[in-house]
């Protein structure tokens, strides 16, 4: 499906092939695209992966179930908590493990905090790709991210690779200063999101560059396995938290925002709206969190876990889309097959179709609006 260029009688034009190579400030990691351009217009785009392939799926087959938890942190390294959660969910489904109430609430709080942080970062980096050169939106988003990372560090001991959520619950209980700090942070985050909204949404240059760029139709999105904010910004109200109602999401009252334009601007608005809904969930969770144990499977049992023979597919709504784990167990303490259903790899399926016909500058914008993380694409 490439654009036909009609040759004029006397002037024969040719296409130029450039390589937006692995080393590039805007490809969100080591991601390579081979662009074929006719002047400034993109005629063809071929993505090339594999620069960050670490063989996690193979290595995980030789480690026990609990030793694989740190691998999951490093998948989508910006949102460590939700990766852990997906793996824990799949393992709980496979082995039939129950999770205590308090652990579920803690998981929800941290998961939604991660979602807020991820969306703010995504917006900041989208603006960086658009050219707010000296990082101003990124720096503001990172300032808020630091506050959230402080909370995660308080709970899990590590900022970016928490390894906090494991099958059966969470590793340890929240320290006492967590809740007061969270109570002060949530209104602050609300104000920050409103501030970002006021400053960024009505910017004329942004709208001129984002509206109508990279339109993704709903039918194509569903067919291509695209999930997350990208899908919902194309008009499909599919949120795994509502559809599957995993964990305790059916107890919370939140909406699933949907936008119908399917372009970069709609994805930006979508992330902003979802961040607001996440803050709503956090407030409700903070109010209702009960006391109790935080794990039903202490480390001694977890490290010797031998799930019965079988297989299970568990998925969650991570900030970038659907993150799923397909675990096959043959009765031993190591997984027989450890398959990661990667969010960002599938979200990139239609990159070519979204970019054809646009200019070179738009390719970077569209890639920024899909919001990928290479650790998840290449695993």
């Amino acid at each position, binding site marked *: 499906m490439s654009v036909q260029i009609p040759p004029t009688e006397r002037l024969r034009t040719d296409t130029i092939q450039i390589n937006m190579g692995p080393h590039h400030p805007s490809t969100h990691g080591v991601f390579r695209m081979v662009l074929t351009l006719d002047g400034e217009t993109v005629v063809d785009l071929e993505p090339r992966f594999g620069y960050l392939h670490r063989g996690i799926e193979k290595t995980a087959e030789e480690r026990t179930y609990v030793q694989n938890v740190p691998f999951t942190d490093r998948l989508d390294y910006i949102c460590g908590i939700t990766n852990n959660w997906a793996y824990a969910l799949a393992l709980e489904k496979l082995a039939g493990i129950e999770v205590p109430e308090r652990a579920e609430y803690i998981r929800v709080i941290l998961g939604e905090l991660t979602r807020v942080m991820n969306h703010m970062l995504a917006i900041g980096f989208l603006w960086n790709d658009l050219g707010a*050169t000296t*990082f101003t939106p990124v720096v503001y988003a990172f300032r808020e991210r630091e506050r959230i990372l402080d909370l995660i560090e308080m709970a899990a001991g590590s900022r970016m690779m928490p390894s906090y959520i494991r099958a059966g619950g969470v590793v340890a209980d929240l320290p006492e200063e967590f809740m007061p700090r969270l109570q002060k942070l949530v209104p602050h985050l609300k104000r920050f999101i409103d501030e970002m909204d006021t400053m960024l949404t009505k910017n004329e*240059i942004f709208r001129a*560059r984002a509206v109508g760029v990279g339109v993704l139709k709903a039918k194509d999105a569903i067919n291509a396995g695209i999930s997350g904010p990208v899908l919902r910004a194309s008009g499909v109200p599919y949120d795994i938290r509502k559809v599957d109602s995993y964990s305790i999401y059916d107890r919370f009252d939140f909406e699933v925002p949907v936008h119908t334009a399917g372009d970069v601007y709609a994805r930006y608005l979508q992330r902003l709206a979802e961040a607001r809904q996440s803050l709503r969930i956090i407030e409700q969770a903070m109010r209702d969190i009960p006391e109790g144990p935080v794990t039903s499977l202490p480390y001694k049992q977890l490290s010797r876990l031998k799930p019965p023979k079988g297989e299970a597919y568990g998925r969650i709504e991570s900030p970038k889309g659907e993150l799923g784990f397909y675990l096959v167990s043959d009765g031993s303490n190591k997984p027989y097959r450890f398959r990661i259903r990667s969010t960002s790899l599938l979200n990139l399926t239609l990159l070519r179709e979204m970019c054809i016909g646009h200019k070179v*500058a738009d390719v970077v914008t569209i890639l920024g609006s899909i919001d990928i993380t290479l650790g998840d694409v290449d695993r």
Partner: protein
Amino acid sequence: MENVWSIENVWNAIGMALQNWLAGFLPAWLVTLIMDLLVIVVLLAIGIVAVLILSFLERKVAARAGDRYGPNRWGPYGVLQPFADAIKMLIKEDIVPHVADRFSFNLAPVIVTVGAVMTYAVLPFGRNMVAANLNIGILYFAAVGSLSIIGLLTAGWGSRNKYALISAFRSVAQLITYEVPLALCIICVVMLAGSLSTQDIVLAQQERGWFFLLMPGIFILYFLAASAEMIRCPFDLLEADSEIVAGHFIEYSGMKFALFFLAEYIHLFAGSAMMVTLFFGGWLGPWLPSWLWFLIKTFVVIFVFMWIRNTFPRIRIDQVLKIGWKVMVPAGLVGLAITGFVDKLIADTLIAGVVLFVCNIALIVGVSYFMGRAQRQKEMAAEGAALR
């Protein structure tokens, strides 16, 4: 010649004293030659000092916009940072790519820098301080300022790199486009001032009031066109480091890169200085010396440029060209017509000024309305696009 020593006249007085001293023991032609060379050296020095200050200021302003400190290691508050940058660029290895066209590759930074520095000759730094008081001053400025475009194209071609080539194409397109609104605005100012010489333009503002008050619409048009000419954000797609990684000087390193860097900031200073001359009354101002006023006003304008740079995203190249040809050129022509009619038909300068102001405000409102309407139509079309 009488030598009046005062804070206002200090630079001229130093120059006269030196000339008198030299004339004591050198023939006249040699004295003139030495004085002219000295003027050239002084202009170059102003350029380089401006670059040092501006590069530091840029980083500090960008940092403060992002709620951080900026360079603060070298010297108190980081003021020695530009010297560190200069030393770094001088001692870097000068790499010429194996397949590059050596002649063009080496020639390009020279052309760009020369084109930038030559514009300093007509800037009125103070009451009697113009290096060359040409009576076609503005025309010279616009003409010589366009010399850099050839340099950019040469750099892009000589680098033998697709990214550099794409950037060079974009550069030529954008810079040529924005020469036209720039020239139209300059003509409006020249009409009101009655002369092409920079000193006369400043003196005309002394009589009629500063031109940015008289013609705010033309001023805004000139501001945007000058931003595009100096490749400042939001028009800096040519050196976009998020797409084509520094554009036309992607293959340069060491001293040649330093020359490009230098040329950019020299051009920034010259462009701001010209804006101050044309619209803000040059060196006019009460009780501070004239050259100090000039510097203050220039740095305020530069600060506004940096402020805008840290706030807005970039405009895409096809949108840049669209705005240039479809919005700015017609607006410039309309402004030209307004200025011409008002200036020649209304004899009284005060009434002419007020009418001109009102017409310019109408111009701004009209252009904004039309641009806004086009944008809203595009957005209405995009609603619900995913479900169709």
